[in-house]
């Protein structure tokens, strides 16, 4: 499910959002680079969930606890509120039911961090408008027939989903190729977005 060349974006963005010494579950942790940096830079104890055997091997070699699991099957193996942070980076758009996974993440983590490519980025819109073709860009480098991104959404779509699910947005960080973008213009100009979310009931 996770392509080899998934862009390693937004690690800095995510690391900034995580409190030092906290516990972290990284969903779709790939080769474990983010967990390793969270350990080195924040002293966080982490665990990864990954489906690919090769990535699992790499994580084990880095001394990272990794659990083989398929995100499309939910997070039933994980206890409620088991982690201070549950992270899903560049993977939301690849799962069969992003809404269900989001709800599961809110159950398992006190905080949820989600990073994904913003489909509302103006170049995507222009490609569709003027060329009449599915966008292919630096952050979305796949042809329509081979893309693992089956549920792309815009920043605004995601905000709406959070509202529908009673999820409170604590922080929203939008960027264009690594440079910050004001929230007002973000849906049009951000290539990447990163959200820090909590359960609305818990945030009161």
């Amino acid at each position, binding site marked *: 499910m996770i392509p080899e060349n998934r862009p390693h974006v937004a690690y800095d963005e995510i690391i900034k959002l995580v409190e030092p010494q906290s*516990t972290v579950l990284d969903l779709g942790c790939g080769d474990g680079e983010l967990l390793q940096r969270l350990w080195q830079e924040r002293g966080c104890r982490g*665990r990864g969930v990954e489906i690919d055997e090769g990535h*699992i091997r790499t994580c*084990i*070699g880095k001394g*990272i606890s*990794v*659990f083989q699991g398929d995100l499309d099957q939910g997070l039933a193996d994980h206890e409620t509120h*088991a982690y201070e942070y549950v992270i899903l980076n560049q993977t939301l758009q690849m799962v069969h039911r992003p809404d269900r996974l989001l709800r599961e993440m809110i159950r398992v983590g006190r905080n949820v961090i989600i990073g994904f490519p913003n489909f509302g980025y103006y170049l995507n819109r222009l490609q569709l408008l003027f060329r009449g073709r599915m966008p292919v860009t630096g952050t979305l480098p796949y042809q329509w027939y081979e893309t693992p991104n089956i549920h792309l959404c815009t920043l605004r779509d995601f905000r709406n989903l959070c509202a529908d699910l009673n999820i409170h947005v604590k922080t929203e960080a939008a960027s264009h190729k690594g440079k910050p973008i004001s929230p007002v213009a973000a849906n049009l100009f951000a290539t990447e977005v990163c959200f820090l979310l909590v359960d609305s009931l818990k945030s009161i």
Partner: protein
Amino acid sequence: MSVEEDRESELGVVAPHYFEFGSQNDGLTLDSGQILGPVRICYESYGTLNADASNAILLLHAFSGDAHAAGYHSSDDRHPGWWHSMVGPGRPFDTDRYFIICSNVLGGCQGSTGPGSVNPETGDRYGLGFPVITIHDMVKAQVRLMDHLGIQKLLAVAGGSMGGMQALEWASRYSSRVHGAIVLASTSRLSAQGIAFNAVGRNAIMSDPRFRDGRYYEGESPTRGLAIARMVGHITYLSDESMRMKFGRRLQDRDSMDFSFADQFEVESYLEYKGGTFVDRFDANSYIYLSKAIDYFDMETTHGSLENAFATTSSKFLILSFSSDWLYPPYQSREIVRALMRKQKDVSYCEISSPYGHDSFLLETERQAPMIQAFLSTLTQDHALDGTP
């Protein structure tokens, strides 16, 4: 590769060693309350123990295994040890780096004290008078062996199936003496299905007229019953897919069925062969004792819950299961992993997709080797960092 060539890069000829204890009021207190002594443990070792005794790895064999994990017993021996593909120079259990030990379990019949041993009180073989032993009892004997070898803390314990049960016991009860536990195709308690197959095996042995309540050592042994027990066992070690790939519906030594009972499918002759060779190396009484020890093993009941079993463990875990293993199915490994995660323990888990059934842990060397190698190397690094042997 010929045996000779293979041997070049291998451990070559190895020999078993024996350790005896328990003859002077230092017998082994078993879970049943009985005290067993003297006890003899057969073991083999490969590689060299380093100066601070911090590079030792204990391999834990499965039901019918023995202390002979790797190498050959003589220069014309054609059968290497049971985990030969994983143990040796440059292999995951790298004898250039680690000191590898493997001992025959208590209750076994391949060098260690078991029901076939002579009871010093009577001068006769124990037979069914041998005390009932548990997986924990096997581990207690291994702990004594480690004391004897001067190994305070093992870098790792590793085993599949019944060996995995022992690894779990080590990590649960003796975690101060185990840095890492590698648990392959195993469970914290055998399923009802597993117990059922063991019961059929025991019944086959005990129904053999030669069994005579286990007192067969002076005469003919219950080879037919034992062979049938082994045939049942082999069915449970394979899978529908592996049997289809290996045998299909092919007939042995003929092209078509001639509607006689002499017809033999390949799978039948495979089971016959496996049953036949097994009786030459295994004792029927040991089959009964060891299968019972597996049936009794239940960490949930023993400790109240699986979380309790691992509440105080400081060991790290690598747990691997195999997709087609229906005897020790992946969900049982995941239960262990979930309990460890709930207790915030250091655990990694992978379900390796493999068609070979329970046997996968002995066959899927290429898939599991890199993970075991990676896990062991992090244990070595940990040791270098914290400096505690």
